[in-house]
Every structure is written in structure tokens, then in C-alpha cells.
């Protein structure tokens, strides 16, 4: 299967050796699996024989999803988790002991920021933030003998920082450290961190992989030793298992992943181009635009820029909220990476607690608006934006 093309793997990988002859993987909504005999039970528990034991750490439907994700990310294995955050937590918990450190870009999703900032402290460990992640020297400076892995989210949510993965991977390799990439925004359909030199990939599969905002999920794709280590010593005791039904929904999502990502990219580019030309727009942050500072990094490592973007409205906080309220197709919600287009106003929602001064330091202005562009008809999306801009005039 590893020699097959991406789309073939997205539809078929992970089912070899699977007994049922069904067109679609059955949903094994079952927590336990009987053994042929006591001998077999002992062998499976010792890990000498493949087999399922208990649904918290293994399940046949979830196993197909894990194998399929490993095939798509070109890793030896994968372990699914209840959410993207639990995937990152399981990985961190497995890799880091008290007194040790993680080096991470500070341009990460807020949940990840909190986990590293607060969670690691509680584990007796700490994070060394790279506050200027464009600079390789900054990364190098943050590394100490206690560092266990480098973590980067690229493109990042919501700032859309893009890391030079091969350069960062070379640095990690020279320090004999694994590089972990959060590939949630691009998905393996657009970016393959392992082939760019990374060692481990994490995902919130809740986003583009599932694709329709129905099911939470996360996954760690990496070397067998790490993945199975998390299975035996992490998820088994910590417990954030993915539900079989969610794994099945994610498998269905994978079948159309590259078709959807293609359309997401196409629509996002159309919207970004429209916004860039609009007189009420100060700037547009979308890596697909030539004006974007990261644009030169795209071609060597990404097939497309996905559909997360932000722009600054030429106006006030109130103008931004009026604009959002005027939108009719684009939904006002705190989510991204789904078929439906979503708008978020960070200043009044996700980042409102920061206050204006802190917000500006983090690069968020009161009139900044974030989009996750969906796969609706391009003309309707632009029409929706156009009428919302017009509503500001009245």
C-alpha cells in the first residue's frame, strides 16, 4: 500500500488482513473482544500476538483509521485519541519526564499554548518558547540538554506562521531531537511533514480530516516505538480513547479529503484575492497571496495553503461586529476546517480576555476577522462578503 498514490491510500489503506468482507469498515461499537483461549489472551496481552483486548486502547474500527492515517503520513504507525488536544497531551506525556523540556514555536493554537505553558509545569517539566520562530538561531538557542522534542504548528492557527520544515528538521537532526509537526491546517493532502524531514505528526482530525464538524478526534503518527509506547503506557492509563463511531466518521471523511482540500484552497484563494482588492480591507493574511511574507516557503513544502485566513477591516471593533452580523452564508462560530465557511472575531471572542494592549502585541487588532473558508460555491461566498461590506455603508 505504501507505494500507492495518496488518493488510493485515503480510500483503501488500513484494511488489509481485515476479516469482514464489507465495502465499508463496520463500526465495532464494542468495548471488549473475547479470546480463543487463555493461551491466546496471555499472548495478546504480552504483545506477542496481534489482537484486540479492550476498547480504551484498541478497537478494530479505530485501528483501520490509525493504519490509514499512518499510510497517509508515511509513518510506521499511528494512535488515535479523543481529540487533537489529547493527541498532543499523550505525545507530550510519553516523551517528557519531570525536569525535561519542550521547545516550541509560540505560534500555536491556544489550547496547545495552554497545555505547554501550564500543563508541562504541572508535570514538573517546562516549555522553552521560540518567540521568533522564523529564526533558526532562535530555535537553536532555545534547545538545552534537557530538550526532548521540537514542536511546530505550520501553518499556525490563527497567525498563519509558516515554518521552513526542512531547515527545522535539519536542526533537530543535528541535535538528535525529534521534530513534531502539527499538520492540522494543511492535512497530509497538502503537506507531508515526514518527507520534509519531520519525525512525528499530530492532528486534530476534528478539522479538515473529518471535514463536516461531526466528530472530535486526534491522532499521533510516528515511529512504531513511540506510537505503541503511547498505547501501552499512555492511553491505557490516561484514557482519552477515540470512539469507534468517530473513527468511522473520520474514515468516511478521509475518502474525500483531497477533493475537499482542493476546493478549500481554490475558494480561499478566490476570497483572499477579492478581499485584498477591497477598499475597506487594510491587509489580508493568507499565505497563498504573493504579498505574504511566507509565500516563498509554500512551493517547496505545500501543495496548497488550505483555507484559514484573516484580514483587518479598515474600521473599528464595532464595524467588525456589524460586518460579521451581516454575513448570511458564512457562519459565526469558533471552529475551522469544515465544509461550511466560518467567521470568527478574535477581539470579541477567542482573545477578548487579553485586553486591547496585549491583543495588539499578539498581532490581533480590534477589527481583525478570521475565516475558515468552506467548499460552498465561490460566487456565493464572495457575494456574501460583498453584501456585508455594503451593509457597513448604511
Amino acid at each position, binding site marked *: 500500500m505504501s507505494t500507492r498514490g495518496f488518493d488510493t491510500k485515503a480510500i483503501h489503506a488500513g484494511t488489509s488482513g*481485515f*476479516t*469482514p*468482507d*464489507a*465495502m*465499508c*469498515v*463496520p*463500526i*465495532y*461499537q*464494542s*468495548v*471488549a*473482544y*473475547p*479470546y*480463543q483461549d487463555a493461551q491466546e489472551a496471555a499472548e495478546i496481552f504480552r504483545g506477542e500476538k496481534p*489482537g*484486540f483486548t479492550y476498547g480504551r486502547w484498541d478497537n*478494530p474500527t479505530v485501528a483501520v483509521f490509525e493504519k490509514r492515517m499512518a499510510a497517509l503520513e508515511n509513518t510506521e504507525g499511528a494512535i488515535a485519541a479523543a481529540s487533537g488536544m489529547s493527541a498532543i497531551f499523550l505525545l507530550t506525556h510519553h516523551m517528557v519526564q519531570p525536569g525535561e523540556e519542550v521547545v516550541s514555536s509560540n505560534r500555536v493554537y491556544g489550547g496547545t499554548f495552554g497545555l505547554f505553558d501550564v500543563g508541562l509545569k504541572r508535570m514538573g517539566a517546562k516549555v522553552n518558547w521560540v518567540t521568533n520562530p522564523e529564526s533558526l538561531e532562535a530555535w537553536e538557542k532555545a534547545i538545552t540538554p534537557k530538550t526532548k522534542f521540537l514542536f511546530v504548528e505550520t501553518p499556525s492557527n490563527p497567525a498563519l506562521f509558516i515554518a521552513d520544515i526542512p531547515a527545522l528538521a535539519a536542526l533537530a537532526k543535528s541535535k538528535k531531537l525529534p521534530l513534531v509537526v502539527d499538520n492540522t491546517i494543511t492535512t497530509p493532502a497538502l503537506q507531508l511533514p515526514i518527507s520534509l524531514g519531520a519525525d512525528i505528526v499530530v492532528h486534530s482530525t476534528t478539522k479538515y480530516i473529518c471535514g463536516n464538524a461531526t466528530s472530535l478526534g486526534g491522532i499521533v503518527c510516528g515511529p512504531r516505538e513511540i506510537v505503541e509506547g503511547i498505547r501501552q503506557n499512555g492511553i491505557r492509563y490516561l484514557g482519552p480513547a477515540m470512539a469507534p463511531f468517530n473513527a*468511522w466518521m473520520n474514515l468516511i471523511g478521509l475518502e474525500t479529503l483531497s477533493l475537499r482540500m482542493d476546493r478549500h484552497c481554490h475558494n480561499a484563494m478566490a476570497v483572499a484575492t477579492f478581499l485584498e482588492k477591497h477598499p475597506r480591507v487594510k491587509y489580508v493574511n493568507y499565505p497563498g497571496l504573493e504579498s505574504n511574507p511566507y509565500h516563498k516557503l509554500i512551493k517547496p513544502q505545500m501543495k496548497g495553503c488550505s483555507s484559514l485566513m484573516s484580514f483587518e477591516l479598515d474600521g473599528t471593533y464595532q464595524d467588525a461586529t456589524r460586518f460579521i452580523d451581516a454575513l448570511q452564508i458564512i457562519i459565526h462560530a469558533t471552529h475551522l476546517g469544515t465544509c461550511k465557511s466560518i467567521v470568527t472575531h478574535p477581539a470579541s471572542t477567542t482573545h477578548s480576555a487579553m485586553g486591547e494592549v496585549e491583543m495588539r502585541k499578539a498581532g490581533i487588532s480590534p477589527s481583525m476577522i478570521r475565516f475558515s473558508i468552506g467548499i460552498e460555491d465561490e460566487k456565493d461566498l464572495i457575494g456574501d462578503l460583498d453584501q456585508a461590506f455594503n451593509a457597513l455603508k448604511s
Partner: protein
Amino acid sequence: MSDIRHYLDAAGRASLWHKEFLGSLKKCRFDTLAVHGIYSMQEALDFNQGSIIEPIYMSTSQAYRDADEMEAALGYQIPTWCYSRIANPSIYYLEGVLALLEGYGSGLETSCVATSSGMSAIQSAIDPFLVIDPHNRSVPLNFVATTQVYGGTFQQFAIRKNQERGIEWRKVLHSTDLNEWESLIDENTRFLYGELPSNPGLAFFDIPLVADLAHKYNLPLIIDSTIATPALLRPLSLGADIVVQSVTKSLCTSGFGVCGAVISRKDIVSSIGIPEMKADFATWLKLLPNRDNGPNLSPMNAILALNDIRTLRIKMDLMSRNTQHIAQFLEQHKHVEKVEYLGLESHPLHELASRYMFLVDSEYDTCYRQKVNRYGHLMSLSIKGTPAQTREVFNGFQRIWRATDLGRIKSIACIPAISTHQQQGEEGRKLAGIPPNLIRLCIGAEHPDDVIRDLDRALSVLDGVHIPVKNGPEFSAGGASSAKLAE
């Protein structure tokens, strides 16, 4: 060169294995069959990744090893599930357990076909008997069926069959009157049909007598046994040929979705039809007519139903006891004109129902150690009041849910005249005995004290008490925001 012998041989061996396994189930009690059905440990280990719960085969079709296997499978020569309109592993597991439960204690071999709803079960069960005689196309067909049936059944019989197809529904008004049944039968009658206990009228008749009558005229007796479920009544063991179930109801108290089933005994009696149809009606129905007509169940619903059925007996016991308690309370209530429940001695059919409705296996239950009567959880009350006051009482319920539903683990009420039996009109309601002051109650597994409190409070509107309508909150307990704020 085609050689399907390899597969036929294997199928023969498999058939012996399954026959022996089914034989071993004959020793099992009802609860054991309800919990395990036909899903054996071997079935799990060899074919289903060892999953202890039957998997949800959410898949349209089966893949085959080669052309030979496909040929043998599509010719129904080997076990197969081929395409989910015809069959599906999850659905087989549901059908297996339903066949075992309906046949329980009878020594009969039974089979089952699951359908997408109770109504499609009825349509599937009766349609094969309503075929035109190719040698005598002008003969008008008829069937004899009780009038006290669920409103949907009434419409299927009255409109879809009688009015649109010219297939006469000969209505039995008093189903306990055997002479009336017999007087309606002629050489063009194709089957006898009865719903019992009926919804909501709780009609009940002597199945063995009506079955004997049907068989005397070489006709099958079809029974809708939805209200009783096999935990309380098993019509096949009493002589009926075919049972239909709206599995949606008490078989699936959780109310997750819609589901139906047709269960038959081997070698049914019928004046028409090919030998294969009569030999194993439900299997024939599954593999041929329903393949072509397509009222298939979703595999997801099949497994959700299976999970509900595992606790059927104890739930029917508890809900029947609760209903008995509540019916006795209502019978004494000053604002209640009449309570209809088969468990009440005042009910004219109480004695007859008591001869047949027992909690299965109660004699082996350490709580009872003897056969105990249980009458299900459907009852009705007629209030001393006008149709408008009936609505007021109904609107006063706070614990009991107002819904067009029954069979739930939650208590539910409806006014049949304005809901389930609205479509059949005033005349049809008179025939079926549905007055406008009748409230149908289906009692759930709540503590009966709480249900009684709710009923008492709602009935107090007849004392002139005004039950204020409280405004709801603006955010839900589940965290959903309300549309109210948007106004």
C-alpha cells in the same frame, strides 16, 4: 471453468454448524436468548475481530473472493449478505434474536425479516397474499381484519388496499365473536389479521380459536403483537402463522429510531402461494419480494434495536407493574369516567387476556417462582369532560411527555382522536372505538408515584384549577442558546 462446488461444500458444513448451534439454544431461557441472540463467541472470534458486541456493518455491500463465490451467493446457494437491501450481517443478528424470542417455548422453528418500520412490516407480510390469480383476474380479493387497529394500519387497509386497489377489507367489529369472523370469510379471502392487544382500544381475542378458524379455511392468521412483545405473548405458539412487530415500540424502549419485523413459523397455512413461500415465509419474503420492493432496515438501527432487546423481559415486567398501579389509581379518580387496561378486573377482556398474557419465564424467576400475568404498559383513560377539557388535562402534563409515541421507557400520552387516529375521520374512529375524551397513556419505567402526581395535578383542571404555563429558560441545560434572544 466455473466450479462453485468448493463453496457449496463449505456452505453445507457451515449449515450443519449453525444448525447444531441453534439446537443448543433450545435449552436457553428467554433472557439468555435476548442477551445473546445468534451472535456466538465463535461468530465474534472468526468473523468480527472478536468484538463482543455485534458490529454495525454500515456498508452497502459485501465483497466476494472470486466469481464462483459471487455466483453461488447471488443464487442464494451459500450463506451471504451480498447487498444491504437484501441482507446485512448486523440485520441478520437482529432477525436471529427476534425469531428466537417469538418462537420461544413453542418448539417451533421460526424465521424473521427485519423491515424499515412497523408499517412496512405489515405491508410486507400481507402483500404476498394479495396477488391476483393469473387464471382468474377479475376475482375481487378480500381479507378479514379487526377494525381496532393502529391508525396507520387502518389507513393502509382502508385507503391503500380497499380504496386504491379494490381489495376489500372485511371489518371484524367484535373480534371476540368467532361467528362474526367466520361470516366474513369466503373463497376469495386471503388471510385473517388481528392486532392484539390493540392500540389504543386494547381489543383482545382468543388466538387459538381464530387460528383454528383460519386454518379451517386454509388461510393464514397474521397477528400484530407490538403491544405485548414476545416477553408477554407469543402468538406463533398459540397457532398464528405470522407475527408483525413495530420493533420501534416496546422492543426498543429507548426510542432511537424506526424499525419493524415480520416473524413466521415454518410451513404456514395459505390457500395461495408457491411451496417455497409457505415453507419458510419470512426467509422467502426477505430474499425475494423485499429484495425487489426494498423496505430494508438500516444496519445502525438494527444494532441499536439489538442493544435494547437484551433487557426486554425485565423492562416489560417493570413497566407492566407500574401501569397496573397507575391504572388502579385512575380507576378511583373522581374526574375519570373510564380506565381501560387489560390488567384491571373491570375490563371486559381481563379474564381472556389473563389466560394468555404472562411474563415469560416468571416461573423460573427467583422473584416470582410461578406464572404471573402481565398486561403491558398501554392503557387509556376517558375523562369526565368535554373534548376541550380533555385537551386542558393533556396540556397540564409535566412529567408525562405529550407525543405520538408509545413503548418508551418514558411515560407518554396522546389524544388519539386528534393524532394517531385523526386520519380515519369521525366515522372510522367510531368503528375503532376512539372517543374524543380518550387519553392514551403508555407508562414508562419512572417511579409510578411521580407519574401519579403528574396525572393528579393535570386532572385538577377539572376542579377549576388553572395550571399556569411557565416560560422556559433562555439557555438549555445542554448549553444550547435559545432563539428567543434573537427576536
